[in-house]
């Protein structure tokens, strides 16, 4: 589904991704871990098309389409969903009205007929229950006055409504207490199908106890330095990142010799 080949990207002239390679197939969950500043959030921003990042090299394909040629909204309509680390507040714009606009754009793109108000509300109710999102939050202004946990849960609710192919969750677990983490994880597990895929960006192994990944990758210094299965996450939990950093720098010094 997603194919990232030798992706390099700069922000303000500074290279932040230095040759990422990653293949994600339908039905898979990938976790991307790594220390602070390793480029995890930059990767999600580049995939979503944030404009202050400049891709200098490499390719990104989504089901055979060149993602890098698309505007952010086109990527979204193609089925790329980014659950933001810090969802913004938009006063006066109701959550529901916003979702209706988003969904209708996506449906137009997929050549689906518009949903009637009745069907839309029915769907809203179903998805709210699925991801345990309170109706009163759904009816409020978009994220306005939401707690950190409520904002994250709203991201998952939106994910459920928009039904993307590829969901990238950027530290969705950060700032969640244990109950909220469980609710968010349950929601995501319910949304997993054989046709969609998830990329979880996280600092902590904790999230992976709830959402079990098929693959775990470690990002360091703008590159994936190690890939493995869920056991890798446990190893990281135990040993930290330093051994990988040392290994990486050791490798680097060999390469430069």
């Amino acid at each position, binding site marked *: 589904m997603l194919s990232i080949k030798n992706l390099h990207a700069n922000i303000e002239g500074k290279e932040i991704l230095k040759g990422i390679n990653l293949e994600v197939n339908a039905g898979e969950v990938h976790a991307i871990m790594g220390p602070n500043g390793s480029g995890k959030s930059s990767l999600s921003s580049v995939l*979503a*098309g*944030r*404009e202050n990042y400049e891709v200098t090299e490499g390719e990104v394909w989504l089901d055979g389409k060149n993602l890098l040629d698309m*505007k*952010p*909204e086109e*990527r*979204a*309509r193609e089925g790329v*969903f*980014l659950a*933001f680390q810090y*969802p*913004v507040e*938009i*006063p*006066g*714009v109701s959550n529901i*009205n*916003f*979702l209706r*606009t*988003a*969904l209708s*754009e*996506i449906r137009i*793109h997929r050549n689906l007929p518009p949903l009637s108000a009745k069907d839309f509300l029915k769907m809203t109710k179903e998805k709210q229950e699925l991801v345990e999102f309170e109706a009163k939050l759904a009816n409020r*202004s*978009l994220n306005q006055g939401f707690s950190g946990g409520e904002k994250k849960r709203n991201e998952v609710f*939106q994910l459920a409504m*928009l039904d993307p192919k590829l969901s990238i969750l950027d530290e969705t677990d950060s700032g969640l207490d244990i109950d909220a983490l469980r609710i968010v994880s349950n929601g995501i597990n319910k949304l997993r199908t054989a046709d969609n895929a998830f990329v979880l960006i996280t600092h902590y192994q904790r999230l992976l106890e709830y959402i079990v990944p098929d693959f775990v990758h470690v990002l360091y210094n703008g590159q994936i330095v190690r890939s493995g299965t869920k056991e890798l996450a446990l190893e990281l939990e135990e040993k930290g990142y330093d051994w990988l950093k040392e290994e990486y720098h050791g490798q680097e010094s060999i390469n430069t010799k």
Partner: protein
Amino acid sequence: MEKDDMMLDELANKEYEFGFVTDIDMDISEVGLNEDTVRFISAKKNEPQWLLDWRMKGFRAFQKQDMPQWQNFEMPEIDFQSISYYAAPKKQAKYASLDEVDPELLKTFAKLGIPMSEQKQLAGVAVDVVFDSVSVSTTYKEHLNEMGIIFCSISEAVKNHPELVQKYLGTVVPHTDNTFASLNTAVFSDGSFVYIPKGVRCPMELSTYFRINAENTGQFERTLIIADEDSYVSYLEGCTAPMRDENQLHAAVVELIAMKGAEIKYSTVQNWYPGDKDGKGGIFNFVTKRGACRGDHSKISWTQVETGSAITWKYPSLILQGDHSSGEFYSVAVTNNKQIADTGTKIYHLGANTKSRIISKGISAGQGQNSYRGLVQMGSKAKNARNFTQCDSLLIGDQCGAHTFPYIESKNNTATIEHEATTSKIGEDQVFYLNQRGIDSEQAIALIVNGYAKEVLNQLPMEFAVEAQKLLSLTLEGSVG
């Protein structure tokens, strides 16, 4: 930044959608302004002597006045001698049905999307269409007549209800008020007149569409609305103007009078031609609007959505005379490209326990300059008077400006005055967030702006609110910040 510029360019190159000229024979007075012009207009309209005398007083006051200089922009040179002060469609007959109306005119209305049709009837709106200066079609008159409601052009009111016009005209905005109000007094062409009798609740929204059509024709509307004791009326005014290269002057006067227990709701959507991207052309909109809450427990509410005009100079004001009377001012003003808006309100609390509320939302994009200018005055007898003001500015891009000039004067230590103000910028983060959900930048801006202005838009009658939302989006199209 590069993207911003591209978007701004795109916006700048967008043509004014309603820019076209209707080809109808016009009956136009010669250009220039002197006592004879005033007499010509009055004679054309077969007016009584008292009205001519009043026009003359207005003209003399106009001659003595200087152009106002306190506003936050340089007053453009206006050559009053190069303007024609009277234009009327030649066919002045009243029509029994729309079939008889000049088809060219109907086409114009269709392009503007003015639903002067059966749909309108279903929506329950009676429309008094002012095409340039003279009313050509008035509907619903009979139904309203039965209730004793008078809704007609002010010329008709002068003919049929002279005692009412003479009693109230110029009592809220005197002929000496300001340059533009004095000019309007001297040369006003037509406008609307509404009288709601005691205890009557007007069953429909009354609405008028104004439109400037003839080149070099000043537009001087005069509106007078009187709500007698315990009555209620909601009045809508909306307008679009065709594209012109020369600046056109629009100097309207609106007077509202609410007697004991009466309520008037006055809503405006203003979309005059704003000029091109370099600020060439466009309407100068210098309007004097004022309402008087004369009786106890009366209420007047102004709601305005100002998206058009090269310059908007407008301060719908309120005089709260009656005890327990209350006033509201809700405003959204948008400036894009080189548009200028200097707008706000003045509220004079005279009676005891009077209340007022001001919600002003300015939106600046392009190189637009937006000023809120407000005065809240608490008189010595205004015991326990209260005012709440909220004055917000939203900036799109980095070349526009927002300014606020709030004045507060209190001669009463029991008065409560609150003022809140915010300035914010549409964030790239907000736009990106919406992009990431499949919404393009144009629509994202529209959503954000409509959310920001919601508190004001909610005050508009339903169908007007929809129109206003579209206008906001249209005005800001492409101006991503």
